[in-house]
């Protein structure tokens, strides 16, 4: 109830002190224990239903990974850093190994490169499906959640057969990978790929074309092309705004330049476009998996580590590799010294570009490991894009940028 100027005048005349209040906003804390927020908090200030200010409060899962890396030997950093994005462990550890390889002037064998790409793409699909499931449940569409998590299991099973574990693969070592694929792997991979291709049509019907979902996503959280470049966001979030940037394309690593695939880009920049970028990427990753297993099946003669390293293996190790496909580590690799120098490497992880700066002083441990993760760069969307939307749009925008707090916090 507002008081008219007249009444205020009367009250003042009676000697009552009248002060005008600043406009009041309603403040809500989403997280850190909120089921939807992950390990973070968003402090949202509301005017009625409209968000006037959103402040992402990050750092709840900061584990000082960069510092910890300085205190462990080179190969022991991999199991550490993969824990920042456990659902995308292959993609986030690859550039670290690439940087170390650059310092050591070592090149992985082509077979190892194909295996890396194979696991990375399996991982990308699993990671997108995970994000998709969470997105579904944000919007109250629990079918999408169940589907996403169920179908993710198909690809985790593939990864498990390849590496021996579902999530924390620790698959790359300088100069190669730790295991070759089993003989029957291509067959299984092809079946999984064909299944997922057909399944995508159903995803479209039940979720992406569903009018209820479309109305929650269309024209929500629009980021224009210039704005996206200004904010410095990466990954599907960037490509959903029409910027043509994908590390696999712009700065190819491993064997990506030899593969036939598309980098989907949408111009609209809204939550729907970002979701579709991810769905289209799954289709492209399926193509890559097929190409990779085809190649791997045809070229069996090369070892999965660099040739010169393979030569140096003792006889027992070679026999074991022939028999089981497992590459043994040499005790000398534990305390291996990396020539002094600085190297950078980047890769396209599920959520966008991940960047490593690695510096060596010639010792058995890194002198410095710097990581810039995609989520750390995308978190700015909360601050800059969310205000002006309704509160119900917050989960839609959150889900569409696929923000993963442990990755941002490192």
């Amino acid at each position: 109830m507002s008081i008219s100027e007249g009444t205020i005048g009367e009250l003042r005349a009676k000697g009552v002190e009248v002060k005008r209040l600043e406009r009041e906003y309603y403040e809500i804390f989403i997280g850190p224990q909120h089921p939807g927020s992950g390990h973070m908090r968003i402090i949202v200030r509301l005017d009625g239903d409209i968000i006037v200010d959103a402040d992402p409060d990050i750092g709840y899962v900061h584990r000082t990974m960069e510092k910890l890396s300085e205190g462990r030997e080179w190969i022991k950093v991999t199991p550490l850093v993969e824990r920042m994005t456990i659902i995308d462990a292959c993609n986030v550890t690859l550039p670290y190994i690439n940087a170390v390889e650059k310092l050591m002037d070592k090149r992985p064998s082509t077979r190892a490169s194909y295996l890396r790409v194979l696991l990375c793409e399996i991982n990308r699909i699993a990671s997108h499906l995970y994000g998709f499931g969470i997105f579904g449940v944000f919007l109250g569409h629990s079918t999408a959640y169940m589907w996403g998590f169920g179908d993710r299991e198909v690809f985790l099973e593939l990864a498990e057969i390849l590496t021996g574990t579902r999530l924390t693969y620790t698959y790359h070592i300088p100069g190669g990978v730790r295991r070759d694929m089993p003989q029957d792997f291509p067959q299984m991979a092809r079946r999984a790929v064909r299944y997922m291709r057909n399944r995508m049509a159903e995803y479209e019907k039940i979720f992406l074309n569903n009018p209820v979902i479309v109305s929650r996503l269309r024209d929500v959280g629009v980021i224009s092309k210039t704005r996206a470049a200004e904010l410095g966001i990466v990954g599907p979030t960037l490509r959903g705004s029409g910027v043509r940037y994908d590390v696999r394309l712009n700065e190819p690593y491993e064997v990506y330049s030899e593969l036939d695939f598309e980098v989907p880009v949408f111009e609209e920049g809204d939550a729907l476009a970002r979701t579709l970028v991810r769905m289209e990427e799954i289709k492209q990753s399926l193509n890559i998996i097929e190409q990779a297993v085809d190649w791997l099946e045809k070229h069996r003669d090369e070892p999965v580590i660099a040739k010169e390293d393979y030569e140096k293996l003792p006889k027992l190790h070679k026999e074991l590799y022939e028999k089981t496909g497992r590459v043994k580590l040499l005790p000398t690799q534990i305390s291996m010294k990396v020539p002094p120098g600085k190297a950078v490497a980047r890769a396209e992880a599920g959520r966008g570009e991940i960047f490593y700066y690695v510096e060596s002083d010639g010792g058995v441990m890194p002198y410095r490991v710097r990581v810039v993760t995609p989520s750390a760069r995308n978190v700015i969307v909360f601050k800059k894009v969310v205000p002006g939307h309704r509160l119900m749009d917050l989960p839609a925008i959150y889900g569409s940028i696929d923000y993963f707090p442990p990755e941002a916090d490192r």
Partner: protein
Amino acid sequence: MPPRVAVKNLKKGGGLFEGVKSNIEALIVGIKYFVDPKRMTLLYPKEYPEHRPGYRGFIVLKKDVCISCAACARVCPSAAMKMVRVTEADPREPGKARQKQYPVINYQRCIFCGYCVDVCPVEALYHLPFHDITYESLADMFLTLEAFQKEPLRPVEKEGSPVVYEFDESAGLVKREKKGGA
């Protein structure tokens, strides 16, 4: 063809007809799976998964093979493996005792990265293809040298039946009962 950009556009928001059509399509898919659900849920512990031999699960030491090189303890990224010094009978000189070091594992810390198994020069360590054992106390998770040499019993084997997952083109993963028991 090399990798390339593919610019796409969203479908335009359709009218009433489009809306009704896509609603019905969504419902049809929903009903399809309501009538014929494709479930892959594991009914643990009534069923338990049989992993393939390469699975990185619990680790067992073959003490007779071990040459006490300590590589496994040095490679462990989470300091889960430690060497212990034991006095034992010397097999080469009967009646005499000798001191030797062997690794023991602390499952409170182990992350199952498998580095130790991969680095052992004589294959004295191996993985078991499972991962589901619980301990009554934290202290139990620090295995003694004796316990580290025994393959732990998997409690679920007593109550459940083993299943394997197979890839399938129409259902993704299909759960199948494993023939012939564990």
